[in-house]
């Protein structure tokens, strides 16, 4: 026991002296989180549209107003040629073009269908898809209105059949993307620090040669690892506090669930991340290799977790692969705790999975460590 404490003390001392590392870790948990949450969003708002209105009637006017009345489209620029449309779309000054043909209002007044074109720039298919969705919905709504009016004028009274979709968004009713974003960033910080820090400190002993010395002491391999991991887990857990404050107080993230549960889940997640880090260190000879290998593993793990791209949008093969990413489960857990307010009863299977990953990786690393002494 004594010797474990001595080892722990040493690790903390070394950690304390590595100022650059501490700053970097804190940065990742705070400033990086703030910057990314403020900046990044998949929402599509403040759209500009170019209107090429060959009809210039009351009807076309009403249609355009329907667009600008929404919160999605803020500006309508009237143009008078397709060429202008081209250059505006090209330069990105508008996100969409609306083309109303000459005979639009004539057709509508006669009770015939008048087609309008929406022109999208496919350079950004994310936004294009969404813009198309919005525009289509707006135009369809307008069409329904117009058709009803027309029918009523013709004397058809009463209601018209309709199934009205009543959309309720649970857990995040305003669909604030930033809640998702900030949680993603905190999770990202967790796995990065959890994985790279242990890898770096373990490889450092290899590089300086102190690993021989330490392996000759009565310290067992698992004691060495525990001592190494304590600073990591301490700072990772402590850093969650400013992150949480930023998320809740700064960005208004609701806390529907239990905060102690959050810390508990984070500890298990860190446990597994650190296991991955230790494993990486047994594969690397020096710091550069440790970092490169870490990235090689981190990237797919992060990607498949649903933080960058929704899992549902991946082909099924990838969706299955994503079941191997501990980050995926952690994301679901954290989102569950904050936005859904669920507790251990619901989340325990996911926690167990994360823990199992760690429980498998650590013994593997220990094995490699013991063997790795024999060069």
């Amino acid at each position, binding site marked *: 026991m004594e*010797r474990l404490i001595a080892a722990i*003390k040493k690790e903390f001392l070394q950690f304390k002296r590595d100022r650059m590392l501490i700053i970097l870790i804190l940065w990742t948990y705070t400033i990086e989180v703030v910057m990314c949450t403020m900046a990044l969003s998949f929402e599509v708002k403040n759209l500009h549209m170019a209107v090429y209105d060959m009809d210039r009637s009351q009807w076309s006017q009403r249609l355009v107003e329907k667009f600008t009345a929404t919160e999605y489209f803020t500006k309508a620029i009237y143009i008078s040629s397709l060429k202008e449309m081209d250059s505006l779309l090209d330069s990105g000054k508008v996100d969409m073009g609306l083309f109303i043909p000459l005979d639009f209002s004539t057709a509508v007044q006669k009770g015939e269908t008048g087609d309008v074109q929406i022109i999208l720039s496919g350079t950004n298919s994310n936004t294009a898809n969404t813009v198309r969705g919005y525009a289509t919905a707006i135009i369809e709504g307008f069409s329904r209105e117009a058709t009803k009016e027309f029918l009523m004028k013709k004397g058809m009274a009463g209601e018209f059949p309709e199934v009205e979709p009543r959309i309720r968004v649970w857990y995040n009713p305003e669909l604030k993307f930033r809640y998702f974003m900030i949680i993603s960033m905190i999770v990202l910080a967790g796995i990065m620090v959890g994985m790279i820090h242990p890898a770096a400190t373990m490889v450092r002993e290899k590089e*300086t040669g*102190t690993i021989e010395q330490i392996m000759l002491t009565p310290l067992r391999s698992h004691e060495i690892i525990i001592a190494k991991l304590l600073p990591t887990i301490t700072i990772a857990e402590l850093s969650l506090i400013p992150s949480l404050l930023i998320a809740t107080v700064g960005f208004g993230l609701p806390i529907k669930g239990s905060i102690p549960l959050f810390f508990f889940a984070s500890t298990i997640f860190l446990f597994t991340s650190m296991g991955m880090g230790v494993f990486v260190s047994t594969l690397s000879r020096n710091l550069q290799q440790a970092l490169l290998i870490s990235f090689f593993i981190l990237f797919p793990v992060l990607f498949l977790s649903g933080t960058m791209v929704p899992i549902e949008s991946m082909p099924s093969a990838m969706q299955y692969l994503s079941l191997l990413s501990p980050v995926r489960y952690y994301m679901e857990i954290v989102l569950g705790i904050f936005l859904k307010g669920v507790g251990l009863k619901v989340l325990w299977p996911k926690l167990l999975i994360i823990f199992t990953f760690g429980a498998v990786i650590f013994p593997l690393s220990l094995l490699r460590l013991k063997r790795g*002494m024999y060069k």
Partner: protein
Amino acid sequence: MSRYGGKKMLNGEAVIEIKNLGRVFKKNWALRGINLEINKGELFGIVGPDGSGKTTLIQSLCAILDPTEGSIRVNGFDTVKDSSKITSRIGYMSQAYSLYEDLTVEENLEFFAKVRNIPEENFIERKKRLLEFSGLSPFLKRRVRHLSGGMQKKLALCCNLIHEPDLLILDEPTLGVDPISRRHLWKMIAEYHSLGKTIILSTSYMDEAKRCGRLAFLLEGRLLSCERPDAFGKDMEDVFIANIKKVEWKRTLPFPRRLTEGDIIRVEGLSKRFDAFTAVDKIGFTIKRGEVFGFVGPNGSGKTTTIRILCGIIPPSDGQVEVAGVDVVRRPADVKGKIGYMSQKFSLYIDLTIEENINFFGRVYGVDAKSLEERKGWLLEIAGLKGKEKALTKEVSGAVRQRLALGCSLLHHPDILFLDEPTAGVDPASRRAFWEMIGLLAKSGTTVFVTTHYLSEVEACSRIAFLHQGRILALDAPERLKAIYNTDSLEDIFMQVMEGNA
């Protein structure tokens, strides 16, 4: 006889003029008030204990370190203003690593030649000569990473001779190199000097210092004296030591005495193979308690591998090893608390303070608080670090770190102490002090197993084993060896044994 066939030239012309040179590093004056002139064709030596400013002086001469005060002129060029004119004409072998380890011998030479714009024909000719001369020809295609320390230094020297500079500056060129390679290196240096070239080198070997034309003695950044070696008197080493702060320490160790009866290490038929390469070939020996056992041999002879096997770090391929009653082959972990180990790199944690290192190693080995305090006090005193415990280990000089490392390996009072080249690169005074300590330890019952290159030191051993290519060629007490080989010099015995085996 010089292979270059040049004439000996001696000229009183000053090649280097140093005026009032001073250099400060963060409030610490590494050099102060140095005034010196070095003449053309001299073989000039710089000596002094660790931390006295030798490397700082050398780097300043090479124009890669600017003075804080004063000036240096090399061949009439100022090191600050005309550094490029200086660097293009000199050869410099730094103490630090200077070769590219993933490249082969040939590729390194080629690189240095191209960088100096040596035309192809000259290169081919010089390369051939240098390789033959240094004995590196058979290793042309080998990567530097796989060369021994001695060979690496030889190659580094060749790389700096490829452009045949008039001025050659070497920073401890034979540091940590085995005796045979050391002789070769000196042969190369001496031959080059005989061409009339100016050579400046720093060293901590007394015999090398004696071969220099003049010596500059540095102490704590100041030039103590600058004379010819014989002006220092008969026993230069004593003079050397007299000028350095005497290391005072208690003659008693803070450890209880031990039995000095019985065997403590038993090795039989030990072999170790790495793929096709046999590092250790069926060696066997027995060591008694309280012995100081010396393992001598060139790099690559299997010394480090043997120590590692004895410590339980790597398993042997064949054979039986018993250390302090523990069957190391089957239960390597059991030996951990009974041995102390000091590697060549003095593996301490450089980002911890001295005190923190001591505390760590003490506690990890389970030394109780009271004993730890006592031993810590003793260690700080013998290392001359009383009052400096809170300094970061990386800030202390190499010699001090060596003493610290030795002390840390002793804190738990191990039965056996394994030392792998413990005095590499340390000045004579410190080396002497170190060996005095080892003697004391042995008397108190601690067995010491040490590997070293410095044949002068193994005189102090109870028995010596000469190791070459994985086999023990001779094993006996020094006096008996001297009688057998009929010579008083252990170095000669070493040569004979090696060459006999070749």
